[in-house]
């Protein structure tokens, strides 16, 4: 019997009034009154639920820019000599700016705020049974910082000299000396926007970590946390540990551009490869910062609609922690042909390819979670499964790029483009949409339309694959990325028809997204009222109203069991909520 862990000592599963009082004091640290004025409630709110929705609105708004730039890029690549409907002709310098904005917006202003900002903020306190985040004001500040960052980036698209046009990786000295691109303030503001975005997620990450460690409801041990929380927190820690070097790098680059230093300029004694190291030391872990929350969402959805416990809960926790740790020692696989010492290639190949092991475990456990289930193909489930099936493609194609030898050929080609879209799109959009359809009833108190949801899924799934499968083939023929049009190269003439297919599919993919926009808006007004727990899910966010009241829970919940108790043998229902007292299961609890 361990002191300090009352759960183990409790023989009567119903907490006494005194116990509850103590527990409430523990769990309600940031107690605050319901905010009444419009501005305090909806704009400068400290409520994690409002902040989560603000992040969602921001990310989905930025996704419009991200999607529109994808359309411009793809149209240009398919039919380079034509005016783009709704835009006009783009020149090669505009093209470079557009691809830079597409990457920047999608990674930093869609994927991160959607998966971490929106879902992380909204769900972590609810899932652990807390009233709010540990630092609600810091949370508000993190949102308004990314809001300013997004505004700065948007403004940068309209300044004289044009927007940044050195790619989302901003390799120096192209990004360093304005004479090479003609871009002046566009690149400076791009750097400023990134630095602000990083500051925002630093604040958010501190909040995620502190909240999860300190504010869990009584009985919510680490091993009872929903996997979503585990993966969000792991992602936050990976971000906290990796972003420092790039913040320094961004400020050094800004100094090169504005103060006349030369950290990355060979003509002033600097070294362009330094930037690549700083960028990718962050840039690779960043992939996991985005991927883990996306997986976290899928992992919440799969057991609910398979009516099965998670298969290998602790194994998955350890696998994702291992993947996060490994992600710190793989960055130079982006630099096999950069000119760094060739003796570094094999060690980085080994670490990179080793990451396939934790991810294989993760994927196999996800498949094992649906194996033997009783699967309902609801919209969130379809998106989670579509994300899993698509991510496998991204995973296996990573091996080709992780091997330094094959990377000599494939580096910087459309194979890379197809590969990372097959990793990031499934987690960001399949994962994100799974989360949206799954938690929308909780967030807005109404169900989304299933028919429209399924149409949205099939359009997304079919067209997504139709965009990027051809691009693998294009890449294998050696087509370099970031090429404004292919006609300079005879060897690319045979793949032009694949670019046309990918472009038509992109248009289909983008048009398909109107289904979710309509569904989102329509359901807000006309959707069926959602019950507190419409999916019969076991985790804590379903133990309160839809939408949850201010401070989330009427009474602080007490947790008695694991997060995924579905189809427990001998039970009448096929699910048991985490809050359900464990009468007759005490031996199981104590052994935990």
């Amino acid at each position, binding site marked *: 019997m361990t002191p300090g862990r009352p759960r183990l000592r409790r023989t009567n599963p119903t907490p006494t009034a005194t116990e509850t009082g103590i527990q409430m004091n523990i769990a309600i640290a940031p107690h605050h009154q319901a905010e009444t004025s419009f501005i305090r409630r909806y704009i400068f709110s400290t409520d994690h639920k409002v902040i989560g929705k603000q992040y969602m609105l921001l990310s989905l708004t930025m996704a419009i820019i991200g999607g529109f730039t994808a359309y411009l890029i793809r149209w240009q690549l398919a039919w380079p000599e034509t005016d783009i409907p709704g835009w006009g002709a783009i020149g*090669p*310098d505009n093209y*470079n700016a557009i691809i830079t904005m597409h990457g920047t917006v999608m990674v930093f202003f869609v994927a991160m705020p959607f998966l971490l900002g929106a879902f992380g903020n909204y769900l972590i306190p609810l899932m652990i049974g807390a009233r709010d985040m540990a630092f609600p004001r810091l949370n508000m500040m993190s949102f308004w910082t990314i809001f300013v960052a997004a505004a700065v980036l948007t403004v940068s698209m309209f300044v004289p000299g044009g927007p940044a046009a050195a*790619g989302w990786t901003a*390799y120096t*000295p*192209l990004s360093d000396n304005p004479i*090479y*691109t*003609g871009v002046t303030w566009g690149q400076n503001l791009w750097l400023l926007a990134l630095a602000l975005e990083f500051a925002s997620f630093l604040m958010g990450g501190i909040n995620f970590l502190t909240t999860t460690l300190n504010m869990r409801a009584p009985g919510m041990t680490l091993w009872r946390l929903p996997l979503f929380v585990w993966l969000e927190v792991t992602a936050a820690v990976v971000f906290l540990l990796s972003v420092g070097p790039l913040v320094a790098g961004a400020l050094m680059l800004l100094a090169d551009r504005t103060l006349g230093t030369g950290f990355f300029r*060979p003509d002033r004694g600097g*070294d*362009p490869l330094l930037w690549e190291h700083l960028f990718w030391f962050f840039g690779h872990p960043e992939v996991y910062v985005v991927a883990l929350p996306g997986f976290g969402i899928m992992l919440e959805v799969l057991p609910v609609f*398979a009516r099965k*416990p998670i*298969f*290998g*809960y602790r*194994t998955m926790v350890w696998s994702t922690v291992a993947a996060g740790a490994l992600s710190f020692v793989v960055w130079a696989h982006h630099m096999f042909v950069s*000119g760094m010492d*060739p003796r570094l290639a*094999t060690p980085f190949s080994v670490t990179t*390819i*080793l990451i*396939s*092991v934790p991810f*294989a*475990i993760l*994927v*196999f*456990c996800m498949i*094992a979670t*649906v194996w033997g*289930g*009783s*699967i309902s*193909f609801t919209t969130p489930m379809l998106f989670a*499964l579509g994300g899993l099936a698509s991510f*496998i493609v991204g995973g*296996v194609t990573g*091996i*080709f790029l992780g*091997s*330094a030898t*094959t990377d*000599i*050929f494939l580096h*910087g080609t459309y194979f890379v483009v197809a590969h990372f879209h097959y990793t990031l799109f499934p987690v960001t959009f399949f994962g994100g949409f799974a989360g949206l359809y799954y938690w929308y009833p909780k967030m807005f108190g109404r169900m989304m339309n299933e028919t429209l949801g399924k149409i949205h899924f099939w359009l997304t799934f079919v067209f997504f694959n139709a965009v990027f499968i051809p691009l693998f*083939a294009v890449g294998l*023929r050696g087509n*370099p990325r970031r*090429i*404004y049009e292919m006609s*300079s*190269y*005879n*060897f690319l003439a045979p793949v032009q028809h694949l670019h046309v297919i990918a472009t038509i599919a992109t248009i289909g993919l983008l048009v398909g997204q109107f289904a979710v926009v309509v569904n989102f808006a329509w359901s807000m007004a006309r959707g069926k009222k959602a019950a507190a727990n419409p999916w019969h899910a076991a985790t804590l966010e379903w133990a309160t109203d839809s939408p949850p009241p201010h401070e989330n829970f009427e009474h602080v919940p007490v947790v008695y069991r694991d997060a995924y108790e579905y*189809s*427990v043998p001998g039970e009448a229902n*096929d699910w048991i909520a985490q809050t359900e007292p464990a009468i007759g299961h005490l031996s199981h609890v104590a052994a935990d």
Partner: protein
Amino acid sequence: MLTGLLPANASTFGGDIDHVFWLIFWIVGFWFVLAEGVLAYSLVRYRKGSSKRAAYLRGDSVRQLAWVLVPAAIILCLDLGIDRAGASAWDRIKGGIPPAATTVRITAKQFNWNFTYPGPDGKFGTADDVTVENDLHVPAGKVVRFELRSEDVIHSFFVPEFRLKQDVVPGRTIAGWFQADKPGTYEIACSELCGFGHYSMHGNVVVQSAKDYEAWSHDSWTPKTASNKSNADSD
């Protein structure tokens, strides 16, 4: 049909790279089909209504986890096999530069490739050096050493049919090599974003038989030298 996925290889080490490519292709192809197959099977087999109740499988016993951990262990072994094959090919390609018959200095700049030959005296930095734009002439079946320099930003020297790619970094000289199998013209692409003209930074490697190369160098080096000289005189 599958072999058409890659462009035809035309260099001596390209075959090594392709070999590793196909090794990875078949290994990951197997796991891809297996994973998607099991997933698809379980979705059909265990759809709601197909059986009474879902199985209560927590996967927290070693016996259950073996279904995941054994495949993962096999994957680990295959990973190491891929690493091994990759490392030995990498060493042959990048581990050192074999004795070369020809050395060329390649200078990349927005948005051109310049190829400098040592000229008739065989030495760089002398008056008879010859620079040609965008067409790299080399002899077939001989090791060609190149030294890459950039005058401005990072470029990347990419010859798809040779499976050759190397970034060109300003402030550094990066040496490498290749050996072309047979005469022909092979395209050079820049594969690192280098500015608005990046898309058109195109060049050719003109691989010639020993005799043709000899003739080309005789023709193009001698008159160039004369004109260089006259330029120098008029300065």
